[in-house]
């Protein structure tokens, strides 16, 4: 039974991520060894080479510039997509007509992968920032929308009646009751979107443009500099990891009042 309710004390003694980080390190060592002895491919450089490339890229500022350019675009797309998702989500959850009007459109657009609609995107938005920011917002939009709708619908009618019995107006009810009450859902949607935003900005940069991580990865691959390519991928993983942690920390602060276990 012990393992079910409490974990063994030997495990608890160490911070529980220790073993996970150890596993990660072991996998990297395995990579290093295979790269040196068994896998004869330029596309599988030793980890030490990659780390060297990371160091060089960081020291000469190139990687910082590459990442900065992606982050900026990602942030813009994320902000626009999330805002649109929240606004439309509230509209769809509170106005049955808005829901009826928009739902089929939304559900049909959702499964279309971005590379399939590059030509009309280019036609409407060009091949620069606008197009990339749009694709990022488009991807961020759906999780936030779906979660906002679910969150607003889950607001307890009692909370709305409280506002009514105290004569609180509709707009104020929206901002001071509905929005905070659905915040946990909205933030969960935004966390999904954040990972998507990173992925989509990188993919968009791979298709067109001369900046950012995606372009850097492609160029390095075509220039036969796989170590530099993997350096960018390593940093990308680190970036994604820390962005998620950052949003979790924000969530923790904003939602300190929200306890999951409770029904």
């Amino acid at each position, binding site marked *: 039974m012990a393992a079910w309710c409490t974990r063994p004390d030997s495990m608890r003694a160490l911070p529980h991520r220790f073993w996970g980080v150890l596993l990660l390190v072991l996998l990297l060592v395995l990579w290093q060894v295979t790269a040196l002895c068994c896998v004869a491919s330029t596309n599988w450089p030793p980890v030490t080479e990659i780390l060297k490339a990371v160091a060089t890229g960081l020291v000469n500022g190139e990687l910082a510039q590459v990442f900065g350019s992606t982050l900026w675009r990602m942030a813009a797309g994320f902000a626009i997509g999330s805002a649109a998702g929240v606004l439309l989500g509230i509209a769809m959850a509170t106005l049955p007509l808005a829901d009826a009007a928009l739902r089929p459109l939304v559900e049909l657009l959702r499964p279309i992968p971005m590379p399939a609609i590059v030509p009309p995107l280019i036609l409407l938005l060009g091949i620069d920032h606008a197009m990339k920011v749009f694709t990022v917002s488009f991807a961020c939009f759906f999780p936030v929308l779906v979660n906002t709708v679910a969150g607003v619908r889950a607001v307890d009618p*009692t909370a709305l*009646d409280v506002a009514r*019995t*105290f*004569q609180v107006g509709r707009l104020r009810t929206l901002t*001071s*009751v509905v929005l905070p*009450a659905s915040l946990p859902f909205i933030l969960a949607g935004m966390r999904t979107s954040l990972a998507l935003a990173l992925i989509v900005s990188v993919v968009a940069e791979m298709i067109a443009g001369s900046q950012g991580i995606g372009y850097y990865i492609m160029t390095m691959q075509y220039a036969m500099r796989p170590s530099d390519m993997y350096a960018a991928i390593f940093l990308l993983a680190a970036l994604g990891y820390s962005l998620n942690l950052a949003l979790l920390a924000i969530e923790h602060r904003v939602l300190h*009042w929200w306890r999951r276990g409770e029904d």
Partner: protein
Amino acid sequence: MNARVNSPADLTLSGIGKTFGSGSAQTEALAEIELEVREGEFLAVVGPSGCGKSTLLQIAAGLARPTRGTVRFHGEEVTQPPPGIVYLFQQYGKSLFPWRTVLDNVAFAVEHRPGMSRARARDSSRTYLDMVGLAAFAGHFPAQLSGGMQQRVTIARALAAQPRVLLMDEPFSSVDALTRLELHALVQNLWQKHGFTAVLVTHDADEAIFLADRIAVLSARPARVVRMLETGLPRPRDRLETPQIPRYLDLRHELLAMLLGHGA
């Protein structure tokens, strides 16, 4: 005390009927309710489970519309929550805003009123928190309080709105038995002090007898008022002594016999 019981009608429900759904899925919750709530009195409404007590109270509060009949508050027809009537919900867990501190939850009742600054709203809220004995917890969040304390916050919030009528829907049913006894005493004191009109919906015969001046007994669905009892017990009432008074024991016997439903 008796002056109150004979004062003019404050809130009048006449010919109230309510039917949910339509066609074959129709539920008639309220049949034809006639009820006069007198200014300043403490009225309890008891009735079997699901008979329509909450529906009735929500209609009285203007939170729901009746299918038939009218509600008048000081002569004016009630079609939406009117100023002066405040509804106290059963589920304190759902009616407090978990993202607001205790103080700001109370302030919610008044902060939006014209001419009310945030600072003033908080000041007056503090007074009411003090009345329910929670001044020390102003900065806490609801989740940090016990159930009984949370329900006290909702009481403070309701009072902060300075209602003329306070409608309470089973406000004590979700707290533990001991806390319930404490809250009974608290509500009785506040009511005596502030002189608002109180309507209490409950399943609990003891609670109704202990708190109310008059008790309206509803039938099973569709609900009608089948009896109106005057308690006539002296005030202030005491948790240990009052239940030993013969009049109390008689009322209890009568009410329970009716409710446990060995017929009507």
